[in-house]
């Protein structure tokens, strides 16, 4: 009985926390620009300015480009998640919650769910714009669900990395510095051009980092192509990063709280 009661409270508390930090996202023009507008601008730039000169092997370059743009959007959100967590720790908001009869994990999960929900919304907006630009996927409902699943796993993996940075950082710069290497990964991957066109050193890096198999798997799913081993490599990367980052984030969280 008491556990059911406390479960209900946990979900209620989490939804209050989610509502709160979703407001932080929707009231930050800066976040919306970086996470949604910038990837769209990049997509427009690459398709309409550079696309004509890029040999990607698809009729419409947007068909090739979109998966990478989606991952860039998620990667761009990481710094903001760290920042929101950092601010809560610094301003004593977590301390306030911790002195209240609120489930310990609710505050942290509120941030994680916010990252997930706000990214899903921003990804949908970007896909909508791509459709207007002539993006014509052939995927059925199951493949779309698989795409959504992979993107959400990728988001969770990065979110838990962001959580470590946000909780452990001593300064605001420290909290968001984690974002830079993550921003970099999609740029050196098969997001914009096939890796076959790259010099061998760069190519070796591009092919063995998490973003390339994720991009390839999403692209294959969207166009009903065989996903091959990419999807398993992609899942392995996402899950491994997520589990390791989660464990570390929890250690830091317990020490702080």
């Amino acid at each position, binding site marked *: 009985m008491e556990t059911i009661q406390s479960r209900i409270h946990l979900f*209620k508390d989490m939804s209050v926390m989610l509502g709160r930090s979703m407001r932080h996202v929707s009231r930050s023009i800066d976040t919306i620009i970086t996470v949604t507008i910038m990837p769209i601008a990049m997509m427009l730039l690459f398709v309409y300015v550079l696309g004509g000169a890029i040999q990607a092997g698809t009729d419409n370059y947007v068909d090739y480009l979109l998966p990478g743009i989606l991952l860039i959007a998620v990667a761009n959100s990481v710094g903001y998640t760290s920042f929101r967590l950092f601010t809560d720790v610094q301003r004593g908001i977590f*301390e306030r919650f911790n002195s209240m009869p609120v489930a310990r994990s609710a505050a942290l999960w509120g941030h994680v769910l916010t990252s997930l929900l706000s990214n899903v919304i921003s990804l949908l907006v970007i896909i909508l714009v791509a459709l207007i630009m002539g993006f014509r996927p052939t995927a059925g409902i199951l493949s779309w669900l698989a795409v959504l699943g992979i993107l959400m796993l990728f988001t969770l993996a990065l979110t838990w990395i962001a959580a470590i940075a946000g909780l452990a950082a001593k300064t605001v710069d420290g909290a968001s510095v984690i974002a830079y290497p993550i921003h970099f990964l999609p740029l050196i991957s098969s997001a914009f051009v096939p890796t076959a066109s790259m010099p061998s050193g760069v190519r070796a890096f591009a092919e063995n980092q998490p973003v390339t198999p994720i991009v390839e798997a999403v692209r294959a799913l969207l166009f009903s192509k065989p996903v091959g081993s990419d999807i398993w490599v992609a899942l392995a990367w996402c899950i491994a990063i997520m589990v390791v980052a989660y464990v570390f984030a929890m250690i830091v969280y317990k020490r702080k709280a």
Partner: protein
Amino acid sequence: MQNTIQVIGLKKSYRDLHVLKGVDLEVARGSIFALLGSNGAGKTTVVKILTTLLQQDSGTATVNGFDVVLQPSQVRQSISLTGQFAAVDDILTGRENIVMIARLRHIKHPHQVADDLLRRLGLTAAANRRAATYSGGMRRRLDIAMSLVGESPVIFLDEPTTGLDPEARIEVWNIIKELAASGTTVFLTTQYLEEAEQLANQIAILHEAGLS
């Protein structure tokens, strides 16, 4: 009568800095207790231990009959904390801040509670402005309003009047007196003897040697 707060032999060190060296104190139900001390005396450390945010190295502390280490969730059910630095959400409005706390305390009519508290703390006119636009004194009042949500039997206020203008300080004093009059136990810290004398039934001074 049983004391609402009972502290025996409380010790706490940060590495080799011995901050609390055996603190004993008792606070009677419905009274105002003032913990006086200069910067770094350990006032915030005592408050954090009593509000379950920090664990002591040794000694025992009970709040509302519950041990802070063994029964932290019962302690949290009994208390409200206004920390030394206003813990308000800058992005939310004053009203949203209070409503959020009311929801987390599972209170029936969060908006009504918020309106009442905003009025009591003189924040009605600023209720729909983001807390980031508040002055220091307004933030402090919002912070206190958030702690009054749910009418906890024990309230901790860590330097509640620091940074307030004389008028706002008297307002806060009045609120504290009202709280005690309605049976709430108030534990506050301050750096001013005059404030402690004005408000408290009981004063303890925290200094190098411990309590006096």
